[in-house]
């Protein structure tokens, strides 16, 4: 049913439709509305779930680690500093193969403290062993939350899933969302029935000490599983499409790439603006297209190289920066593309700075010019140290 909803409400409803038995979270802007809505669903008796108002994000992640290990589907939600505080638990959850669902309301990292959107938080935890899916809009966020459960909980996968949604832009934005019914979701998503769990009738120990004779194999197992997830995402996407008629659960999405001379590559909500710019540029005769990366982990190398195969100029937009190196998406895509392409990286939208139509037009023009790996766009040079003003 189509509803005009705040993004956080839509995401909370999507989480509710998946019937989590335990929810634990700690408030942080801009994640708060999501957990507030879930708390209200429980208070009103519309969701049968244990909700734990914990004393930190570290404990939020630890609580869902415990409840998921007890065999109960569990949900958490955070942002920015909260995700970093969870960091060591986030790694542990993947290492213990617990398919927890988390929404990350993407927000910049301190210092300076900044509550606005970029994607530095989830990118900082890209190596943790979580499946990371980035939503362009609230409809996609809803779809990825529901389908993400089915991907992570697959008995051959058993990995946690982080659905990344741009803070404020999506979480506080109002959009029309087509919400699946409970019956549809129940049909799509089976009850959580893990192959192993804490059980007094079959006692097992979880989280053992892994010495040098066994540790590397645990990492290899996750790495190989991630390769399988590359194949699984489109399959679950097809099942989800059969249910909802929406083709939203996928590794990457191409927009007007077939005949493009220039491709922009990006993740998240900025892709909506980019699509508008592409339409405008095409009216002016410039053949620009978009490759939207939905699955960042696992990183869909073949899907990306296939999509960009015939395109000579590539502009990659990162809402993050690996300080001392380049944007994360740029580094990873540059590494898999042939060197005869003109591939440039652009760092944009940090700390909530708007990425406007003009920004994207400038990016396209820059990409056609000299190749640059780490081009900070829209800088206010008045704020820079004198020696940096010239460059």
């Amino acid at each position, binding site marked *: 049913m189509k509803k005009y909803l705040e993004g956080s409400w839509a995401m909370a409803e999507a989480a509710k439709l998946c019937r989590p038995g335990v929810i634990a979270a700690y408030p942080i802007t801009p994640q708060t509305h999501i957990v507030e809505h879930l708390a209200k669903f429980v208070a009103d008796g519309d969701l049968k779930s244990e909700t734990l108002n914990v004393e930190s994000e570290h404990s939020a992640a630890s609580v869902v680690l415990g409840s998921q290990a007890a065999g109960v589907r569990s949900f958490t939600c955070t942002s920015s500093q909260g995700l970093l505080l969870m960091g060591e*638990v986030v790694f542990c959850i993947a290492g213990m193969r617990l398919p927890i669902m988390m929404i990350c309301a993407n927000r910049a990292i301190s210092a300076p403290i900044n509550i606005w959107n970029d994607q530095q938080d989830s990118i900082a935890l890209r190596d943790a062993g979580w499946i990371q899916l980035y939503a362009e809009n609230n409809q996609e966020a809803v779809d990825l939350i529901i389908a993400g459960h089915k991907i992570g909980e697959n008995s051959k996968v058993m990995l946690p899933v982080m659905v990344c949604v741009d803070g404020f832009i999506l979480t506080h934005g109002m959009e029309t969302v087509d919400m699946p019914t409970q019956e549809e979701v129940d049909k799509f998503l089976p009850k959580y029935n893990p192959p192993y769990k804490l059980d007094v009738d079959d006692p097992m120990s979880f989280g053992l000490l892994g010495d040098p004779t066994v540790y590397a194999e645990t990492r290899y197992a996750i790495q190989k599983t991630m390769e399988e997830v590359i194949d699984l995402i489109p399959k679950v996407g097809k099942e989800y499409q059969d249910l909802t008629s929406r083709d939203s659960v996928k590794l990457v999405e191409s927009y007007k790439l077939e005949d493009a001379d220039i491709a922009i590559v990006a993740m998240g909500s900025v892709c909506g603006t980019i699509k508008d710019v592409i339409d405008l540029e095409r009216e002016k005769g410039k053949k620009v297209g978009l490759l939207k990366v939905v699955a960042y982990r696992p990183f869909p190398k073949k899907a990306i190289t296939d999509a960009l195969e015939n395109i000579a100029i590539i502009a990659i937009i990162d809402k993050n920066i690996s300080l001392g190196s380049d944007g994360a998406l740029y580094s990873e895509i540059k590494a898999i593309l042939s060197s005869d392409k003109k591939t440039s990286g652009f760092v944009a939208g940090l700390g909530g700075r708007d990425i406007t139509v003009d920004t994207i037009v400038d990016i396209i023009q820059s990409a056609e010019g000299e190749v640059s790996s780490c081009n900070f766009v829209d800088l206010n040079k008045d704020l820079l140290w004198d020696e940096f003003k010239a460059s």
Partner: protein
Amino acid sequence: MTKKHFEENLYVSGHTACAGCGQSMAVRIVLNAAGKNTMVANSTGCLEVFSTKAPETAFGVPWIHSLFENSAAVASGVEAGLKHLNKLDEIRVISQAGDGGTGDIGLQAISGMLERGQDVLFVCYDNEAYMNTGIQRSGSTPFYANTTTSPVGKESLGNPRPKKPMVEICAAHHIPYSATASAGNPKDIERKVKKALSIRGPKYLQIHVPCPLGWKSDPAQTIEIAKLAVSTGLYPLIEYEYGKLIKVTKIASPKPVEEYLKTQGRFKHLLKNNEALQEVQEVANKNIEYYGLK
């Protein structure tokens, strides 16, 4: 380990604890008192390292470890999961940690667990320093103990601070039960675990467990040393209910602290220092007076 090994004990031999490890003795008593319908969330520390090196485990009950400071939160999650499954009436949840994982790095998670009223027994095995990493001072290290990070020297008599009062900190949350016990009195541990697990809600039990390696003591004397800590007044055995002290183990004629201190290398530097000995005696005297131990 096979299932047969767990028929007599829920924590069995084959682990790699040091000879005379008080913590390892106490764990067996705690788990046997708790029974097989128990789930355990364990913090990182000696116990986790010596009991569960992959692919082996010494535990006959469902057991989970993830990190150092979060066992109270993990136990909270296990409890919430069991509640959702309507199994909390039949299954007890224990969270356990060393003194560092409890009162230092774990304090926030424990306070949260207690404040939320979760049906979990938190057991702290108090060996009074970071033994797993090599005998570094913790908030629970006693006054004037020699550790690797509170070393004795020309300018130092060892740890300059008294023990953090964790049992009171927990009791101050007005939880149903907060108590201390000693590896020197297994029957008392058993009674307190059974009592704690008969109560719904959050409980805290702190067990004094000698560490021969860290305390530089004779592994054969672990039980005797633990008893001396109690009988000198240095480790009072006390029980709080809802924030009120309701019971203490009386010591009719307290022994001088020197009898306890001389059993351990960590206090060796105090034995020829009458002034320092008197200061430690004052700690015991204050305990005896404050808790009414006589």
